[in-house]
């Protein structure tokens, strides 16, 4: 009971209705009301995997690209590799954004206003 995966969110609550809006590890949602129906369309795991691609390239990839050749666009390869991944990260995050952004998300933000 005490042991938890760091990204896991308990879905057993007294409220009986869990609509965790930031489940990075993809916990099953029990959408009680129709308004949370959009939640079922979210793909948090896919978003997380997608976002991890640049991380892996920029961390685990480094030992393999620590060289000058080939020179691409005038840049030594190591710098080109790092720069290239920095520039494509917004593309990965944009797709991830549409995978986890939902109608429920849109309304949750201003809920208290």
């Amino acid at each position: 009971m005490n042991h938890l995966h760091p990204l896991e969110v308990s879905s057993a609550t007294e409220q009986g209705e869990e609509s965790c809006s930031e489940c990075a590890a993809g916990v099953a949602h029990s959408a009680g009301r129709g308004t949370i129906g959009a939640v079922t369309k979210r793909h948090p795991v896919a978003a997380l995997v997608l976002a991890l691609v640049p991380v892996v390239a920029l961390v685990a990839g480094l030992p393999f690209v620590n060289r000058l050749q080939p020179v691409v666009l005038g840049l030594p390869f190591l710098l080109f590799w790092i720069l290239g991944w920095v520039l494509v990260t917004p593309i990965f995050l944009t797709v991830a954004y549409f995978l986890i952004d939902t109608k429920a998300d849109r309304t949750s933000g201003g809920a208290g206003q």
Partner: protein
Amino acid sequence: VTVPLLVIVAFVLVSAVVGVFGRGRGAMNVERWSVGGRRFGVIIVWLLMAGEIYTTFTFLGASGWAYSRGAPAFYILAYGTIGYIISFFLLPPVWRMAKRLGLHTQPDFFLARYSSPALASLAVLIAVVSIVPYLQLQLAGLGMIVEIASAGAISSNMAIVMAFAATCVFVYTSGIKGIAWVAIIKDVAMLVAVAIIGIGLPAMYFGSVGKMFAALMRQHPAHLTFPGATTTMGVGWIISTVLLTGMGFYCWPHTFASAFSAKDDRTLRRNAVIMPLYQLPVLLVFFVGFTALLVIPGLKNPDTALLALVTKSYPGWFAGFIGGAGAVTAMVPAGMLMLGAATLVAKNLYRPLRRVAVSEEHLMRATRSFMLLIAVAALALALWSPHELVRLLILGYDGVAQLFPAIVLGVFARRVTVRPVMLGLVAGILVVIGLIWTGHDPFLGMNAGFVGLAVNAAVTLIAIVIVNAGPPADGRTFETQR
């Protein structure tokens, strides 16, 4: 009176005036002063975050590292990107919790989530110990910029006092909104300056960036791969440093709290999507550092490489423009740091320690007083104790990154209570202090802060199994309701 001097002074004064008038109408309270009433959209949040993340250290430090160390400087490009990816998932739920519970500061978050005044106090301590040297570094960089750009017409100390007084005035009156307005000036000026010199300087001396790199690869073939011109910054050091600083990125109390000023959680997520593009100026700054290495090798202080090359290559008014842009580049993060640290001390140490009830007006007065106090302390340190800055800064960064497990578990794992988090935090900090104090940084080729964070995470996870006593965070605190 010289031309560069006039340009720099004009820059600083215009920024201060814009900051003072940027406060908007109505009475000021802590909510407005520190988080802008939580009404900022994508653009302003982007400007603010960029404003505090791209500091004078980026301007001078990145070119200095490119000049003196070479490839290890590339970690700056990588770690920011990792930080933004983490923020994409982390900041929206943090924002929602902050909104529900009216949080202003990072220790507020720890107090609300873990119901532990001890953890909140420890967070304040880590924050202030980390922020003061960071602030001091901005000031020292500012002094260096203005002194060199004005060709010695303003001394470093004089520049620090002047620009700092201007910063205090607009932060005191306008809070975060004033900083946001000045951040606009700063970002535009910095982008223009960096674009001109980043492309212009390699072109001026070599014809193009590509030809500059070709010359560099001929003359210093080892400079552009790890470990560059160093002996200790190999691939292992780079990877551990990128991970540590990427995870520590939003652990700084002022970057963490700047997320609170967004008008909604999606703003933060969209912001994370576009932030990596803001790394491009860093690349241009690298170009300047590399050009400087080829054109003016052998500088005693590598942090002056960018400025020395600019004053050598351009007319006086342009050097003044670079100096002014550099000064504002130091003022915005300095303002942000002062505001962040003052809010922490007033709200999370001063108020709990007072036995009597502290009203909103009282808290606002106290926050402003602490801001001036912290400002004076950092000013005194910058003027009279300019040594060991880098060592202090490294210790600070290694320190704040230790908060990462507490933040992540606080957001994503409801049942984790304060004890495992506290044990891990203390273990991590002790390891970091121990390794750095005994001269074991890097340790086995890895950044000491990363070793501390690994120990921290391991202790936290083991302790979750053994001593995670107590009820889980209550439903109001945690994310259960829409």
